[in-house]
C-alpha cells in the first residue's frame, strides 16, 4: 500500500553471468551481491533503473529499461501527448539538470552489445 516501487524492469539471467562483478561495482544501491561463481540479484526492489549494470554487463546477462525517474518531465510529456518513457528528465526547461543534450548513441561493438 502506498508503495509504487515494489517492481522494476530489472531482470538478470544468472546462466549468462561470467562473474566479472562489474555490476556490483557500478550499482549505487547494492542490488547485486558477489558470489563464488556468479553474482546474485539480492535487492531487486532497491533498483532505480539507472541502467549502469545492464550497460556495463559484457555478456548482456542484465536487462533493464533505464531512464530517469523524473515526474516533472514525464507529466510534461504526457500533457504534450508525447511518450512518457522516452522523454528524458532534462528537456529544454528541465527541472533537475539543466538543458537538453544529445542522447548517447553507442555503436555496435564486437562483443555483441546492441545499439543503445
Amino acid at each position: 500500500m502506498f508503495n509504487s516501487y515494489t517492481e522494476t524492469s530489472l531482470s538478470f539471467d544468472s546462466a549468462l553471468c561470467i562473474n566479472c562483478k562489474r555490476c556490483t561495482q557500478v550499482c549505487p544501491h547494492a542490488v547485486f551481491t558477489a558470489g563464488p561463481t556468479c553474482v546474485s540479484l539480492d535487492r531487486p526492489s532497491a533498483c532505480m533503473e539507472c541502467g549502469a549494470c545492464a550497460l556495463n554487463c559484457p555478456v548482456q546477462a542484465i536487462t533493464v529499461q533505464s531512464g530517469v525517474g523524473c515526474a516533472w518531465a514525464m507529466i510534461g510529456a504526457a500533457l504534450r501527448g508525447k511518450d512518457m518513457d522516452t522523454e528524458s528528465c532534462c528537456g529544454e526547461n528541465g527541472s533537475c539538470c539543466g538543458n537538453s543534450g544529445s542522447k548517447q548513441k553507442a555503436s555496435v561493438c564486437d562483443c555483441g552489445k546492441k545499439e543503445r
Partner: protein
Amino acid sequence: MTEENNTSIFETKKKTITGTQTCGCADNCCETPAIQTTTSKIIFADRLDHLLARLGWNRLNHSVEPGLYRLGDPDAESPVFASANYTLSFDALRSSLAGIDAWILVLDTKGINVWCAAGKGTFGTDELVHRIESTGLAGIVSHRKIIVPQLGAPGVFWPEVVQRTKFIVEYGPVRANDLPEYLKTHTATPDMRCVKFSLRDRLVLTPVEFMHFALPTVAISAALWFLAGPFAALAAVSAVLSGTVLFPLLLPVIPTRDFSTKGMILGVIVSLPFAYVFGTTPGLPMWAGALSAVAALLLIPAVIAYLALNFTGCSTFTSRMGVKKEIFSYVKVMAGMAAVGVISGIILGVSKIMGVI
C-alpha cells in the same frame, strides 16, 4: 581577490605539450592539445560559484573547459581521473585529491554533473573515447588505466572504451572524498559504492527547488492578498515552502514510500491551522467558513503532493517505473482536489464581490 583569481581554475595557465599525438581525427590532429593546470585548493571565487550554482543562478554557466588537467606534479605513472565539466563535480574531485599528483580528464558534459550527464549519455562512451584521443593521453601516461566516477557508469560501456582506446576503465567510488582511501588498494568498500541521500544532500537541493516556483508563488500570493487577505497569501507561501524545502528535509521521516502520499500527509498537517483559522473567521456565515476550510484542506495538500512528486527527479532512489505508477495513481486525485479547492475559492471570491459575505 586578484591574487586569488590568479590561482583559480578560471585563470588557468595553459601549458603546451610536445610529443607524439594519437588523435585519430584528421581535422584537428594538427592542433596541439593543451594541458591545463589546476590545484586542489578551493578559493573564495570557487565557493561563490558553488553557492550560485546551488541557488540555480545562471545554472548552465558553472562549467570548466573540457580537456586534460595537471594536478600537482604528475608524471607518466600518475593516475588519471575522469570528471564532468560542471564546477561542482570538478571541484569535488580536485579538492579531494589534495597532496596527490594526478591527471584529470574533463569531459564535455555541457556543465551538467556526472550522474545526470551519464543518464543523458553526455558523460558517455563516445565523449570519454574522444577526450582520451584528443588530449593524446596515451602519449602522456605509460599505464592504460582511467578512473571513472562510479556514477558515470550509466553512460559508459567499458568494453567499448577498452576496444577503442586500449584504456581500461576502473570505476572509482561514488564520492570523490573517498578517493584517497580508494587509491591505497584500488578497491572500493561496499559503503563507498552506495549513494546516500543525507540531510545535507537534500538541504543543498532546496534552493533550486524553491526558485523554480518562486515567481508564480509571488504572483499567486499577491493576488490572494488582495482577494482574501494576508493569511490566504501566507497559506500559498507556506504550501510552496513546505513542498520545496520542508518536504525534502523531512523525506525519510514522513510515512509511506510514495512521494505523492508523503506530500499529501505533510500537506494535511500544514493545511490544518489554515483550515481552522479560515473556518472560524468571525463574521463569516457558516457555509462560507466551511467552504474556506475545505478550500485550504484540498488545495494545500494537492500543491504539496505535486511538489513532492516532482522531487522524485532529485532523489537518488526512485525508479522510472515507480514514478510512472505514482503519476497514474495520484495525479488525477491531486488535480481533482485542486479543482474543487479552486472552485470553492472562486465561489467565495464571487460571493465577496457581490456582497453576499
